[in-house]
């Protein structure tokens, strides 16, 4: 019994810890913080010519998810489009005036529209019209670059 105690085996945990830290590093690097603003249940249209958005250092665009029934979701919340865009445009104008952008100029920030492929045009057009009314001109329409295999 006493012999067993004196020869207690202690595994070397250092390599295991190294491995775990490497895995953590991997997951930290590939974590998708923008995922929260995207409604991944939407079935986007498929367009091979769609390219990743290059913001070229511009301000972050506003991302709107439009479901098949025409409901607008922003950061997971179903929103009324008119008050949402009014608020966003007001905040953006304040931000731009602080940055010294002349008033009345076209917004340098765009709207990213992630709409379900089944949404009827008139509902999409309503969202676009509201955004245009508040000064937005740059739009990005999201599409899958290839058909999902799932």
């Amino acid at each position, binding site marked *: 019994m006493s012999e067993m105690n004196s020869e207690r085996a202690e595994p070397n945990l250092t390599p295991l*810890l190294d491995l775990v830290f490497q895995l953590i590093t991997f997951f930290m690097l590939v974590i*998708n913080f923008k995922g929260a603003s995207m409604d991944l249940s939407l079935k986007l249209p498929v*367009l091979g010519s769609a390219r990743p958005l290059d913001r070229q250092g511009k301000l972050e665009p506003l991302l709107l998810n439009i479901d098949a029934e025409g409901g607008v979701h922003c950061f997971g919340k179903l929103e009324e489009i008119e008050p949402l865009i009014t608020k966003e445009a007001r905040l953006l104008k304040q931000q731009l005036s602080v940055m010294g952008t002349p008033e009345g100029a076209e917004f340098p920030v765009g709207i990213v529209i992630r709409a379900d492929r*089944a949404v*009827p045009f008139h509902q999409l057009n309503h969202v676009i019209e509201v955004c245009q009314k508040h000064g937005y001109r740059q*739009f990005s329409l999201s599409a899958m670059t290839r058909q999902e295999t799932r």
Partner: protein
Amino acid sequence: MRRNRRRRRDQGSVEMNLAAMLDMAFQLLSFFILTFRPAPVEGQLSLNLPPPVPVTKVDQQPKENNSGEAGDLVGLDTLHLQVMANDRGGVRQVILEASPVVQGEMNEANIRRLDRELQAIFGRKMIAFDRIQIAVERRVRYGELMKVIDVCTRQKTPDGQQMRKVSFTELSTGGAEAP
């Protein structure tokens, strides 16, 4: 001297208990694995969408300059397309200015046909179209419309840039432009 130093190091060696750190690392790892959602393979179609312009001049202008040459449309800067819907929300017909160019769904053949027609128009150097205005029947589904928009954005403006300026108007069922 050397022996003394070695002895001191042996006596004062500290062995860290790595089990606690490993526990914490495993917890972090579990968090990242559980919250891991790979980003979808998404792209964007970047467009400049100005509000639509009135379309009253479209039919008149070619008739006024009816000299029978390709330059008939000189002075126009907006090309007009109409997208008509079928019962299922797909595309039934695409009308370019006044003439129907596509009949039926936007399949590969019709996409190529529309592309050819647009290329023929944009290829005429004397016509400076810098915008396409698409009048769309309200029932048309977004997925089908995107195929038309995609073809439009493949065209080149007179300065060699890709066509990015597109406007939308709504057609009520039957083809009348919504107020």
